[in-house]
């Protein structure tokens, strides 16, 4: 058997596929962040906590109300999205005229409060959430065993990411949103309710995070810190892709998942830092990010 870079090609394909799976979570989460930053100019540090809430709401729906995974996939993002709308109306909307830093501090503080509340109630070890029976098992691809559920994660995240990109870049609604970001006063003058548009956008970004949370529940431990571990990486993804760039965050999300996957094969000890090394290099060479528009 011939080898590529010291490992059999089958193993390499397997690892690339796994990288793509992790990349889907990065893409979904960084997409939500990009939407919120692009349209609200808020650096939403609560995103990790909202991802965690998505997973927990799915768990609660199942254990308290007997509602299964498929319904939770729709319900949990809606429920968490509504909490996002409330947060935006009550708190974030008061900060739009201030510096970015205030929004960052507020959302970071909120994330700590939310995580603390869940930790007090549910502990840290996490809660079991089974893979839905329709997606259990897996396929043998020849070079690896692909659990059906992971395949589903990649497919559904791609669809959701592309749909979001399409709505924002190619539809009339998206055009309103982009226009409202450029010049809210003028768009308001055309009779469009700009504050409501912004609130709903935040709710949507949050719902995307919760959606990723529900997808993650069956494969990662559902625990209050699950988002805190991930959000730092996701921020790096957003910075590399270019703050606010929708397509940039999707491509970078999947791409960095692949790079991280390869690092896990060749130098596992470095897999936790590789994304930050790339971030540092990108910031030096292209400070606006790979897909960002220079201000």
């Amino acid at each position, binding site marked *: 058997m011939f080898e590529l870079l010291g490992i059999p090609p089958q193993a390499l394909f397997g690892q690339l596929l*796994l990288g793509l799976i992790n990349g889907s979570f990065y893409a979904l989460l960084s997409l939500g962040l990009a939407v919120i930053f692009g349209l609200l100019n808020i650096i939403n540090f609560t995103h990790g906590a909202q991802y965690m809430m998505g997973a927990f709401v799915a768990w609660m729906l199942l254990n308290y109300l007997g509602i299964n995974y498929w319904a939770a996939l729709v319900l949990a993002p809606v429920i968490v999205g509504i909490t996002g709308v409330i947060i935006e109306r009550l708190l974030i909307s008061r900060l739009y005229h201030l510096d970015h830093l205030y929004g960052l501090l507020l959302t970071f503080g909120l994330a700590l409060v939310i995580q603390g509340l869940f930790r007090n109630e549910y502990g*840290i070890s996490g809660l079991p959430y089974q893979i839905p029976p329709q997606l259990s098992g897996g396929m043998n691809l020849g070079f690896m*065993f692909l*659990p059906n559920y*992971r395949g589903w994660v990649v497919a559904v995240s791609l669809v959701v990411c592309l749909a979001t990109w399409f709505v924002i870049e190619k539809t009339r609604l998206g055009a309103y949103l982009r226009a409202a970001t450029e010049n809210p006063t003028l768009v308001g003058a055309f009779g469009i309710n700009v504050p409501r548009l912004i609130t709903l956008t935040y709710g949507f970004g949050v719902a995307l995070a919760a959606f990723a949370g529900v997808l993650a529940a069956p494969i990662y431990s559902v625990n209050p810190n*699950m988002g805190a571990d991930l959000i730092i990486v996701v921020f790096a993804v957003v910075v590399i892709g270019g703050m606010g760039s929708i397509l940039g965050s999707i491509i970078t999300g999947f791409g960095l998942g692949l790079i991280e996957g390869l690092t896990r094969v060749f130098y596992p000890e470095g897999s936790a830092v590789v994304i930050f090394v790339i971030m540092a290099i990108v910031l030096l060479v292209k400070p606006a990010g790979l897909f960002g528009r220079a201000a």
Partner: protein
Amino acid sequence: MTRIRNFTLAAVAATLLSGTALAETSVKIGVLNDRSGVYADLSGEGSVVAAQMAVEDFNAAEKGITVEIVSADHQNKPDVASTIARQWYDQDGVDVIVDVPTSSAALAVNDITREKNKVFINSGAGTADLTGPQCSPNTVHWTYDTWALAHGTGSAMVEAGHKKWFFLTADYAFGQALERDTTAVVEAAGGEVVGTVRHPFPGSDFSSFLLQAQSSGADVIGLANAGGDTINSIKQASEFGITQGGQAIAGLLVFLTDIHALGLETAQGLVLTESFYWDQNDGTREWSKRFAEKHDGDMPTMVQAGVYAGVLHYLKAVEATGGKDPTAVMAKMKEMPTEDELFGQGTIREDGRKIHDMYLFRVKTPDQSQGPWDYYEQVATIPADQAFRPLNEGNCPLVQ
């Protein structure tokens, strides 16, 4: 008559005086552990509850010893642990630090405790170096260590025919020590290690490493990690069909709270080594029930049990020496045999190693389990004299 009265007075005075002397003994216990991260459920607030129970069960107040318990979060970081330990010893008058999971943090506190001549009773950390090259006259390592885990689970797996090992190791002091000790056991028993991957601590996605293990041709994947990392590894091993494909998983350090989080469906059949399980005998059941009442219904882990037993033994030594001079108390703790409801009778060796039986458990199937927290069946007892590394093999400078 006068003489008798004088004598009585003197006796009363003496009693009062000695009473006063003892009443002046006030000790401050610092519970230092993970309050919010991956090890918070297996140590955390539960360890504080356990320490308080030890103080109550010892009747410290009636014996004239006032005990104050303080606690802090070391976030599993050695630098944070060092800062808190120094602050506690130098400024807050803490006499003894207990628990301290995360081996790198424990080794840091070990050094500081020795430098300040205080007492350190470790329950949470794994590295056998605490009673090996890094051993200290001021440290007792109570509950378990990597050598004991390696010999418990490692030997059992090799005996069951799993000869070719692949390690999934958390890349810090604990994981490395556990991998080293298990490798020694596997090789001594005629097995071999076909590969190792060291993952960053803490991690969340292990599928990539598991896939490497899967294609390595190993019979068994040894998980030299702990807490949330172990939970995610086992969960994902089941998802990727590794256990169904014939490879066995050896969780080298698995706690009761990990099984609770995994659920029996995923965890069933796992073999693991612990020094304490709540449902072993009447003594452990009674204590654990009281513990659960004070701790939101959660059953204790061996780490929390070790904190209880360690604090209890420390207080006995304070009572016996009539003071809290660290050198005298440490000498007394090693001289007196230990006895408590949770670990039975035991001793503390010269190198600081607490000696007691260890147990090999198997996780029950969902059908065998009678309800929440009914998770283990006992497979074997590893007698105290075989459970821990022999005194002369640890390279502890105190022993030579």
